């Protein structure tokens, strides 16, 4: 399962990497809502999700530290 997901995204990335979008064409890409990261105000939700759920990581956030016990 993991291998398939990695392969698909790797394939998409490699195939698309030749078509460079120029800086002046990145008006939409540079929109604040297009950021490829969680919003700053989302951090507390991520924290409680790490406490209440078994899964953690792969979201660009903190991946350890703290007991997560309450």
């Amino acid at each position, binding site marked *: *399962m*993991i291998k398939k*997901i*990695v392969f698909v*995204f790797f394939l*998409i*990335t490699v195939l*698309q*990497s030749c*078509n*460079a*979008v*120029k*800086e002046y*064409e*990145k*008006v*939409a*890409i540079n*929109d*604040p*809502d*297009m*950021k*490829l*990261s969680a*919003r*700053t*105000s*989302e*951090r*507390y*939700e991520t*924290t*409680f*999700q790490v*406490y*209440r*759920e*078994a*899964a*953690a*990581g*792969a*979201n*660009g956030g*903190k*991946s*350890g*530290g*703290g*007991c997560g*016990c*309450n």
Partner: protein
Amino acid sequence: MVVNQVVVVDVINMIKMKKIVIALSLFSGIISSAQEKDSTLVFKKRVLESVEVDFLLSYYNQDGSKSAVSGGIGSEELTDIATNIVVAMPLNDDAVLTVDLGISAYSSASSSNINPFNATGASGGGDDDDGDDDRIGSFAAAPAAAPYGTPWQASSGASKNDELSAVTVNYSHSSDSRNFIWNADVSFSNEYDYTSVGFGGGIAQLFNDKNAELSLKANVYLDQWRPIYPTELHEYSKYGADFLNQGYFAGVTVLDQSGQATVNYLPSAFQTIPSVNRNSYSASVGLSQVLSKKLQVSVFFDVLQQEGLLSTPYHRIYFADKANYYIGQAQYIPQYESESNVGVYKLADDIERLPDSRFKLPIGARLNYYINERFVLRTYYRFYSDNWDIQSHTASIELPIKVSDRFTVFPMYRFYTQTQSKYFAPYETHLSTEKYYTSDPDLATFDSNQYGFGVNYTDIFTGAKIWKFGLKNIDFRFNRYQRSDNLTANIATIGFKFVMQ
């Protein structure tokens, strides 16, 4: 003759003029050359133009009926208020120092029941005179009235409240081309029974006209517990087999399943935890790619290894093959598992026991699509697997809608599902012959749905000002979380971003 003299003078003047023009041209050339050099410097855009301050405030509450502190049954009511101040300072054109200070204060019915007995008993003031500030409460030598408790309500135990303080300092540096960035961070957090120290660093390389980015990150957290145990187990560890006649239990009646007084309660499976360290090591690879003028994607691949004390020392366990013992009012024993039990608490057989290592493997991806000037689509998916046999899927979607130049609203939805750990079993179903056991509902099989909305206000001209800081952005969001095991939670967050002017 005169004419000839005039011509000669004119020629001399012309030569002088030419010299002046050439000199001016050279000078202006030098100036313009210098200006070009200066303009080159000027146009090396600073990574961060000026000091930015984020002020964040969050309110969270939850309730449920499977408290791990009470062995997988009872109130999970919890309220938490957290605030952070994040200050990002440009040190020069290329470097930014970020300091993140946070405080979180919570009140929890669940953790109050580490010592579940009300003011007439274990929590009833005084001191146990053992010299340690045991979080499980302060014991009177022999309470006048019989103590009682219930897993369905908060007790007055000192562990009801706690505060978490945290600080993270991060330094990042960009190359002149802005195509290579490295960073290093240190962090520290502390709460009553837990301290965490962390450090790490990462690099990021941009390729292909900044259309692709490869990042690597590694972090180490060296944490330490100061274990606190459920009251009855604490007393057993302190006084040994005769603990029912000493300390807190002196004069306290223990009941059996039929409500009769007994002296047979002996949690012999319990031993205090010898090692209190928990170390976490993580490595992360991230790859992001602009796929078109409106579409971009990123993939995260993490590897996490945890070692040490991975269980929580105050999570009770009740074995199915052991007799039940209680403190409190006998008439509530038959309805122990119901919220109508307001007067009796079951004594633990042991605390949860979990392996001292855990290997986690999450892989996640974000895909964002700019639909048009009004709509953007933000999506996220993660697959997670670990060697405790937990697998989970997370999917979320958010649709920012630009309702004006300054306001964006964004409805959002998140779905999560997980399979249970091989060490999990519900309340009172573990056997004493097992090596590892937990009744923590966070390690059980469940689904959850989270839905909410956010409102974002942005003023790029920072019209509103406080002292030297202009308000650039306000971000508010509210979410409701519902788990299939009936745990519910609400969380509201507001954030303000100020820019120094």
